[in-house]
């Protein structure tokens, strides 16, 4: 919540600083004056926007995921590791319990 609010305020501040700079440059162009540096409060405003933006972005990031091998191994069960699907026997007594539509029942 705070992260999103900071990010939003940083974006607004940056837009405002950009508008002020555009104003400044168009003002100089209208009066046909040589290039003068951007006024200081615009600079401070953009630096503040940068700081707030960094804070907001770091607070807004999603929770860290577990990437260690041990944590991945915790999610696997012994049956998964021992599955041996290439050598497994798929013949069981299941077909004696199930009603097979279209196939003959064992007598």
């Amino acid at each position, binding site marked *: 919540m705070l992260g999103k609010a900071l990010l939003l305020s940083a974006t607004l501040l940056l837009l405002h600083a950009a508008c002020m700079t555009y104003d400044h440059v168009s003002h100089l162009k209208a009066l046909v004056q040589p290039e003068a540096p951007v006024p200081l409060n615009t600079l401070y405003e953009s630096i503040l926007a940068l700081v707030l933006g960094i804070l907001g972005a770091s607070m807004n990031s999603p929770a860290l995921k577990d990437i*260690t091998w041990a944590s991945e*191994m915790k999610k696997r069960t012994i049956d*998964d590791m*021992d599955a041996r*699907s*290439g050598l*497994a*026997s*798929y013949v069981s007594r299941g077909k004696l319990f*199930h009603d097979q539509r279209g196939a003959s029942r064992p007598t």
Partner: protein
Amino acid sequence: MSVHSALEELAKYRVQNRRASQEVFEKGTSVLQKNGHSKMGDEVWDFLEQLALAAIDVGRLDVADQCLRRLSDKFPQSPRVDCLAGIRLEASEPPETALKYYSELLEADPTNVAVWKRRISVLRRMGQTEEAISELSQYLDTFYTDIEGWLELADIYARCNQYDYSLQALSHTLLLAPQNPVYVLQSAETAYTAGDLPLSLKMFLMVVDMTDGDETEFLAESTPLGITVRAWYGVKLCARRMSENPRVVTASASDASPPKHLGLLDELATERLRVAYSSAGQKGDIAQGRGIVFSWVASP
């Protein structure tokens, strides 16, 4: 269950190699009925193979036939589909027919690994254990890196109570997959059954090391979970038997060195098992059988 979530679950089962045939069958048939397989693109063939195997396992050979027909229409002459057709044959014909079918396929293409493994599986199912072992050994001489094969060999030997040979097969598994704690646990338990207690104790402690490596918590505050509890049980059993019978401490078939602080290990295992089964470990989660565990670890 929506088609999308069912397909996600089935994909997860494929990745984790989970068999769960009844669930796969139910989810898969619901996807087929809702016609979800038409929008899947290229993943539909993996899905059909998984569903066919689950249907054969559950006993619904009609659904398996449907999937198999679709797969063979799309991929004629494919070795993978031939192998699946062989499994379908195993389910309804006597095993000799299936063996003949596999031998024909192997004559046509001797490098067909999947068919060779099916042949070994049929031999084992028929009860011809010696042939199964010799074929499997030949297969593993040719294709050394097949972990499934080594695990199957270890299983066959263990079923015949030949735990030393089983341990040897498992040692190859450990070479091929050294970072997997489940195989170390299986080796530890096999070594315990074979009577090699110092080796077994070492391997149980290795499992604890591999699985309980929680850097953020100290050992005193963490709770053992999952196979770590099983490993602590193993440590407790080994320590108890070694303190009762000092002769087994030095009689190790693999020349494993005897443990130095047996009494301390015993106490540690007792404490860890108590923590694992007490409610202070997981919040509000009192394990069943807590009283039994506490009395067992306390008795000398």
